[in-house]
């Protein structure tokens, strides 16, 4: 498996996600935002966390229009896998690859804490290593993760089962308390219609080791590697 991690000016979790991918057994190549093509043989494109372009204007807005995004769009259109984490999710929304937008957190503050997520479905390339309804312990670190979409979009996401993760308590219960950024329907991550693009605010890449808080994030990367292996 080969992953391309796109680096924008201001990306800062590219190393974290590269480490998680490598640990799961993927080859990883970092790709500069000004490139027009992805490395040949790319299975997965990752848009990492960070503050691309300082998060100035709107989070992900400037990166969403970077040169390399045309290549990412083409990759997605071919059915290639795309994962956007945190700032990457914001970029996916701004570039039109995913619907909706991430607004400022309800308390208007950046928040960094451990957070449980309920895994909504396990039949995708991203989540097959998890159990349905499992509560996984990951971390969040963002100022603008408040997922917002119009009623029609929200209905479609729910109706078609495109919600990937919701903020929950440790038992997988979706509660108001667990939804600290104010996201609609407690949405923490969504898929594209074809389930090959995933955007999520939390950071599974920071929970891959027992020593550093736990290993609940590994499932996502293991899922990707095994999915690609299966497809090959």
């Amino acid at each position, binding site marked *: 498996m080969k992953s391309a991690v796109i680096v924008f*000016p201001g990306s*800062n979790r590219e190393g974290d996600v590269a480490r998680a991918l490598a640990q799961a057994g993927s080859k990883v190549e970092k790709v500069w935002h000004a490139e027009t093509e992805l490395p040949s043989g790319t299975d997965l494109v990752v848009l990492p966390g960070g*503050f691309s372009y300082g*998060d100035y204007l709107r989070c992900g807005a400037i990166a969403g229009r970077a040169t390399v995004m045309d290549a990412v769009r083409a990759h997605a259109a071919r059915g290639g896998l795309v994962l956007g984490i945190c700032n990457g999710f914001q970029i996916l929304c701004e570039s039109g690859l995913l619907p909706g937008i991430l607004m400022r957190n309800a308390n208007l503050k*950046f928040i960094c804490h451990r957070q449980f997520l309920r895994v909504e479905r396990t039949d995708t390339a991203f989540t097959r290593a998890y159990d349905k309804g499992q509560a996984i312990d990951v971390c969040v670190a963002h*100022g603008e993760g408040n997922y917002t979409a119009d009623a029609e979009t929200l209905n479609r996401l729910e109706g078609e089962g495109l919600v990937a993760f919701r903020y929950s308590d440790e038992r997988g219960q979706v509660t108001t308390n667990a939804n600290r950024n104010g996201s609609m329907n407690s949405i923490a991550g969504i898929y594209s219609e074809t389930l090959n693009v995933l955007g999520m605010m939390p950071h599974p890449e920071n929970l891959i080791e027992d020593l550093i808080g736990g290993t609940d994030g590994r499932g996502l990367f293991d899922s990707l590697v095994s999915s690609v292996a299966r497809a090959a």
Partner: protein
Amino acid sequence: MIRNDVAITPELVKEHGLKPDEYERFVALIGRTPSITELGIVSAMWNEHCSYKSSRLHLRGLPTKAPWVIQGPGENAGVIDIGDGLACIFKMESHNHPSFIEPYQGATTGVGGILRDVFTMGARPIAALNFLRFGEPDHPKTPHLVSGVVAGIGGYGNSFGVPTVGGSVGFHPRYNGNILVNAMAVGLARTDEIFYAAATGVGNPIVYLGSKTGRDGIHGATMASAEFDDASEEKRPTVQVGDPFAEKLLLEACLELMQSGAVIAIQDMGAAGLTCSAVEMGAKGDLGVELDLDKVPCREEGMSAYEMMLSESQERMLMVLKPGMEKEAEAIFVKWGLDFAIIGRTTDTLRFVVKHHGEVMADLPIKELGDEAPLYDRPHIANTYQAVIRPESVEAPVSDADALLRLVGSPDQCSKRWVWEQYDHLILGNTVQTPGGDAAIVRVEDGPKGLAMTTDVTPRYCEADPVEGGKQAVAEAWRNITAVGGLPLAITDNLNFGNPERPEVMGQFVGCLKGIAEACRALDFPVVSGNVSLYNETNGQGILPTPAIGGVGVLENVSVHASVALRREEDVLVLIGETTGWLGQSIYLRDVCGREEGAPPPVDLAAERRNGDFVRQLIRSGQVDTVHDCSDGGIALAVAEMAMAGGIGAMITAAPDNMPLHAFLFGEDQSRYILAMDRDQAADILYEASALGIPAVTLGLTGGHSLILPGGQAISVKDLKAAHESWLPDYMAGKA
């Protein structure tokens, strides 16, 4: 636009913060009347912030050497060897005055400045910490300052991409008019790839890098050394705005350029911007410097030489490049979208020459600007020491349990979660111990090594007895690192004091330094970098003497460490260190009895070292994994914190017969640790301790859902946690 030929009047000299005799000294040095640009340059070089004129003499007494010290004070940051070819580079710096005027931007630019100090030396920042002091909670400005400063620290560090892993927050009326915002950065480099500020070689290009120069913070450095008065709010436009995005690009570009081998010397533009950086590079390398300001990238039109030399625009660097490597260097900066301009060269004249529009605006002897700066041995008087308060003379609380509940929920002792949740403390995936423990632990690359780090000082101790307070600050930092299993290696300090022209304040400064030096020597914990912030005083009211200590230690195997959280039921709690029930200057005396009095607890440095070495050995050998040091609030607060962190109750069974119970529970005797371990282990450890002459007693047992005090009073861990976690968020929401 300021012309270079304005007449230099006594008023103008005064406005530049130079005393008449300092100005005379300068005129004598150059043998003529200076131009306005020259006056600006010397005012920047000779103010307190850059010249350390009041403190230099006393700083010489600090121990700065050890076999593992690669670079002590004097460079952008200190450097220590942590083995395996790796160096840890760190420093702490204040941004107190700017943060009071504009808390968000003041704090961001403070963080930006200290990160730059660290990566200037070739290190990639791996962690940030901060030390904050605000006025009393009821002061109308306090909530606004807390919210702005915290958002600013987070705003910069989060975007830059460094985990903010630790720090300290406290409140006291003596900070009402002068808050403290001290930021610390820790970086990592290979020992053979460290970069310094001294220029070498004549005729080498001097290059300007980073963001453009604007009229930001002109006089900022002078402001940092001027006492506040009520008119100071009008100095506002000198506030700079931070751009963490530009800094992140600057980091990547600088590290890439350093790898290319093109860099001879590098210096960040901090206080007094281009002036300080250029003069230091030349003076340290025994070279002259010639600058052509026509080449400086400017953000605004019509900037004069004076303005360019004094601008404190952020995210800028100065480098001396290897000749012939200009093109390669420029390509790297263009790729990262940053400015790059050759603005001068090194010379063999030992003069600092500044040209603008073909005219010489300044021509000064470069070494004398630094070496001949005024040096003061300001009068200082020793403090009047406060009497030792005997434990028996301090009233008992109505209820020990209520007193404890009150302390865990007090402004100074409550959880600072509201603060550190605004900081990304997990980025980079190496944070082994997150905020909330004794010291933060960050894994070094992929391990197995780790670094432990902390910031500490107890200002009320320093106020009551500067020497003991200085010792205690260092000892507490050493203890916090030890408590997680780290071997303390070196410190950075941030010496925050009032007006040094007052002999009492100078007395505090001298006393604290004496204590710091003594403790550093006794604990083999040298000072490798630091910062002095004086004139923290408004309308004659100075801050508490606050020499913040930033300590760093190493863990050879980071997976073997200890933390404060109780892990198991039925563990035995063991107390290491001697307890006399010292209540003078304790939190109990202040926050329960309403008295801020007495001599602070003394630190026996030999015992400190012996107890700490013993505890560290227990952690390293894997015998103990649960440790907390005893500090503010004594045994009771320490056990409460262990219970809250682990969600497991505990029973304190030891009850002394030689002191009142409240003195035992809340006394702040130094050099103590509380350990939790299983029964068999405990017997061995108590035996080992007694063989070594180390005081050790069984304190109690873990288990249940409550903390039970001697005599049977119980508080549920849930209630403790509710009190501990609620004060700060409620206060910030206007509810407390």
